[in-house]
């Protein structure tokens, strides 16, 4: 019976303290929520930054190439098997190359490829319009100038076999080797020249480890007929930039979280310290030190729990918004972040109650009540 009433009294004290001092409780809660929200949103961003940036990096195009060894070409079935073994985000585009002659006998590189794949793979190609009718080719800007100077601009010859392409103004401009080439649809290319594709450009998304796994799977598929080469220019720069971004974000996250936590700790400490009169009154009417500690601690911890939950929700929302605003893809809330945020909040609350309680313990209630 006695214990029930004590629990009731305890609950009542907590309740009244929250209700009667709404302003103070709300300010303390606000402080807790800020700390939890900032920690949550930054950790969410940090956890998600890899996948967000890797998506951006894939816009640089292929990060690996399959090249047929020697003068071999890649069998259509092994290209199909490579394409089948990849995830939905990954791209594999076959390319076949040959050197054809224009009407006046100038050499020009003609490439056969799948336009849909090439378009997805090479987003930086500045293309006037992608060819979609038979016999239409995508002509590099410099090749276009050369072809137009010819007496018969559409005529190409390879091994004595002629083909007529229409280059109805569909040019590609990249500032690279592509500008000197003519791109054709792969079936037409093969039918005309009999040359099979010799390379497959791959854009594989994911972490370096998962990219490596995929490449090893492809190595098994193609066997000895070809080799798989990571494009080091792309891979190395990606690793470097990703690493730096991750570290700067991690350091900022830690810094901001620690500082906001300290800042909130200072606020909460002063708020508990300001309640020394409550403390003194309770002690004067016979409350034990343990009871007092329990009341103040419970109050702080309840506040921390509420703050952590609210902060987690707000912080997740903030991270999602930052993801949407910056990467055009929301950052998904990571539940795995919550335990850390919750533990951190409890720790702040605990410290902010323990330090002032320890100070107050040494002072006589009478001194506080007298107002000195």
């Amino acid at each position, binding site marked *: 019976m006695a214990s029930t009433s004590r629990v009731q009294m305890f609950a009542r004290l907590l309740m009244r303290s929250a209700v009667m001092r709404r302003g103070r409780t709300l300010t303390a809660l606000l402080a807790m929520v800020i700390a939890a929200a*900032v920690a949550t949103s930054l950790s969410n961003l940090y956890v998600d930054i890899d996948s967000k940036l890797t998506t951006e990096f894939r816009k640089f195009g292929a990060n690996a190439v399959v090249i047929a060894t020697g003068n071999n070409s890649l069998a259509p079935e092994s290209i199909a098997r490579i394409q089948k073994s990849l995830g939905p985000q990954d791209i594999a585009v076959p390319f076949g190359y040959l050197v054809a002659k224009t009407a006046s006998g100038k050499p020009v590189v003609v490439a056969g490829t799948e336009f849909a794949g090439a378009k997805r793979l090479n987003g930086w190609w500045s293309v006037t319009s992608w060819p979609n009718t038979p016999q239409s080719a995508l002509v590099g800007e410099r090749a276009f100038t050369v072809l137009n100077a010819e007496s018969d601009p559409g005529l190409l010859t390879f091994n004595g076999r002629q083909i007529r392409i229409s280059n109805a103004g569909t040019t590609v401009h990249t500032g690279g080797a592509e500008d000197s080439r003519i791109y054709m649809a792969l079936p037409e290319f093969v039918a005309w020249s009999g040359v099979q594709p010799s390379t497959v450009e791959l854009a594989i998304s994911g972490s370096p480890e998962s990219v490596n796994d995929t490449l090893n799977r492809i190595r098994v598929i193609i066997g000895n007929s070809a080799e798989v080469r990571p494009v080091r220019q792309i891979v190395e720069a990606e690793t470097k930039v990703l690493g*730096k971004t991750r570290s700067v974000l991690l350091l900022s996250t830690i810094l901001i979280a620690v500082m906001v936590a300290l800042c909130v700790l200072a606020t909460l400490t002063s708020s508990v310290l300001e309640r020394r009169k409550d403390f003194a009154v309770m002690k004067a009417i016979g409350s034990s030190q343990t009871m007092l500690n329990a009341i103040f601690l419970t109050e702080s911890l309840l506040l921390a729990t509420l703050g952590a939950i609210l902060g987690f929700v707000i912080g997740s929302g903030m991270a999602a918004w930052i993801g949407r605003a910056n990467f055009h893809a929301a950052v998904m809330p990571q539940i795995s972040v919550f335990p850390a945020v919750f533990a951190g909040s409890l720790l702040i609350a605990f410290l902010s109650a323990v330090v002032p309680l320890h100070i107050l313990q040494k002072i006589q209630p009478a001194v506080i009540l007298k107002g000195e």
Partner: protein
Amino acid sequence: MFLRLLYQSFLRQRRRKLLAGVAITLGMAIATAMIVVGVDVGDKMNRELRSYGSNIIVYPQEDTLDVSVGGVNLKPASEGAYLKEADLINIKHTFWAHNILGYSPMLPVSVEVEGNATPVELMGTYFAKQLKLEDDTFITGVTKTHPWWKVEGSWPADDSSSVLVGRGLADKLKVHSGDVIRVANQEAKVSGILSTGGSEEDSIVAPLSLAQSLLGRPGAVRRVYVSALTKPEDDFARRDPRSMSPDMLERWSCSPYANSIAYQIQEAVPNARAEQIRQVAQNEGVLLSRISGLMLLVTFAALGAAVLAVSAAMATTIFERRKEIGLMRSLGANNAAVVTLFLSEAGLLAVCGGTVGFLIGGFIAQRVGLAVFNSNVQVQPILFPVIVIIALMVTFLGSAASIRRALNFDPAVVLRGDAA
């Protein structure tokens, strides 16, 4: 009397002032550190992105088409135009000289190599060539523009006749660094084995002067790769400079877009065409704006959190002093006097907290810069007044609401202790 009140308030309530001061200091330290890092991160990342290598290519205006398949150059050596090596230094004399981090001239020559049945491509270039500018020297070459090239052994000197042999070719010829090979009936020392992950692994890379003498064309260069710090492209950058009014052209030329740097290089090097390498230039622009955008938003979030945390700290301090306010008012102080006193206290705290916070934040930003990018970040002095003003605004805002509430209470009620 006012000064005395202020002084005594700080003296007697040391602990309370200290805690509020700590909150302001920490808040402003976050603000400073994040602003400094956030502002600088774009510049730093831009440099990191240069590990993608060159983003501008320069080639002769009347050049014929490149005829290379899988890295094998099928273009007849006699064909095509050349740039003059001596003209290239003009690249470092353009308005954007400081943005040009390096350039590498390239001259491919097809050569016979003893022990190899088919001709091999020998690429002449700079490795780490020292060029004299008016007031200092500029070191440039593939070590700057192709940072992913790795050499087992050592890089050849630019004035030597030593060469690098690509990994694939070296395996075929069974040569190691230190060996001597016969290239076009001349002896050449192999100073290292080159691995690039690209087609260069099947060729020889030599100093430019060696390639020029093999080709019999001293001073000739086929193309130049330039690595430049650029600004991410926007709509304005994509416009054609030929269609711009003089004013617009000036504004366009004064922004370090890849296009405008290329345009100026084209003007500076006779008979040259320069353009951005879209794969690198376009994508790194997007990537850079994403990363700096992220840091900017994180900075805003941190700033917001700092502001709220400081406001909460101020609100707590003032809130607890209702009794003081009640006492002052019952002794005859008018609202203006109370507000002045409290805001002065807040202001004093803000200035002190802001100053210390600025120092701490600047220090932290430096540490972050050193830890992540291995280089110092610039703490702009102009940031100091900005931080103090932010601190003042935040503390005033945080105090204002609480002071107003405290003033609304009847002093008698507050003093009796009934007010909630």
